[in-house]
């Protein structure tokens, strides 16, 4: 089961309730290659709509990057590049992704991938984005939980 399907199930079944007013600063979402473009090619379904629907349940103020989904740009941290030692190449790789993020002016970047999360946290200072908050999609959901 994917992280998206389970979160959507919990929300739709009313097993968890979310506070949409918790985060008001502008956020954006990054499509990981493997959940999106590569899943579309390998399995005939890219997870594009699911994370966006979950984001809509958590907050009002978020925008997409451009380009996105099948034409998304990789963060540069995938394919094992975080652990293969080619660090200057990996940091440089991210320049186009960073341009996309800067163009939105977002203060928070939501990702559903451990590699993307690690890459963005590792490089953000290098590109002058020290204050950009990098959040797992499920971390966002956990932060918005209304506890009874």
């Amino acid at each position, binding site marked *: 089961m994917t992280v998206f399907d389970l979160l959507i199930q919990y929300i739709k079944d009313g097993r968890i309730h979310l506070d949409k007013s918790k985060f008001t600063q502008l956020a954006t979402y990054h499509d990981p290659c493997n959940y999106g*473009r590569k899943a579309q*090619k390998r399995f005939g379904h890219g997870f594009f709509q699911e994370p966006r629907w979950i984001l809509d349940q958590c907050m009002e103020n978020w925008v997409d990057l451009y380009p996105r989904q099948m034409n998304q740009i990789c963060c540069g941290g995938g394919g094992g590049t975080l652990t293969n*030692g080619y660090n200057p*190449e990996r940091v440089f790789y991210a320049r186009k992704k960073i341009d996309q993020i800067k163009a939105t002016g977002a203060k928070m970047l939501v990702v559903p991938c*451990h590699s993307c999360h690690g890459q963005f946290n590792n490089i953000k200072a290098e590109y002058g984005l020290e204050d950009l908050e990098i959040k797992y999609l499920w*971390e966002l959901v*956990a932060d918005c*939980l209304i506890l009874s």
Partner: protein
Amino acid sequence: MISSSEIIDMDQLDHTRCRNWPFLQDFCVTCGMCASSCPASGIDGFDPRMLVRMVSLGLAEEVIDARWPWICTMCGKCENVCPMQIDIADLIRKIRSKREREKVPGILHKGLVAALETGNNLRLPKDDFIFIIEDVAEEVAEEPGFEGFKAPIDKKGANILTTIHNKLVNTHTEDLKHWWKIFHAAKEDWTVTSENWEGTSWGYFTGDDDAMKIMAGRIVEQMEKLEVKTLLWPE
């Protein structure tokens, strides 16, 4: 190392050498769409069009020894625009698979060997893993709204089994808590396993299909042993 200025001896070219590689590389029309779309184009002279042509021309050693396949993240942007539908990302992974294992860069192969030998990339002993899980669970239970929280280990008949990314029991234990809090709020019946909990599978990165099968097979074994029907594999 390859550079575009390097002159290749024409006698080395052999179209038949890699023709059994199933990536359609021989269909390349050298249009350069891949190179135009690739975020890594130009890094260390990397050019996916050139790499595809080198494979088609049989220059296997040159690409296997190159740094290029490891700078590429296999993001698939190139093949998404390729008019001939060449499987460039899979071709890159195939090239990686042919690198001598001891020469796989960084800690990728070392981590994988550790996982195959011990069940996780960190060689973290079972007792230490349990200690970390219980310790972090106690921290969660101290937060308002999560009183009584416990992380069930090896719970037979649970509804969901979830794997753990090794960094979450290493340097990022705080990030264990997000899913746990969601499970708690949803009143989910979930569990983690005390052995073979590793969620990453670095054979994907090194091109090692046999290792990937072993890693996935172990997770299935755990599910069977604990009679859990649903797997959440967030990695």
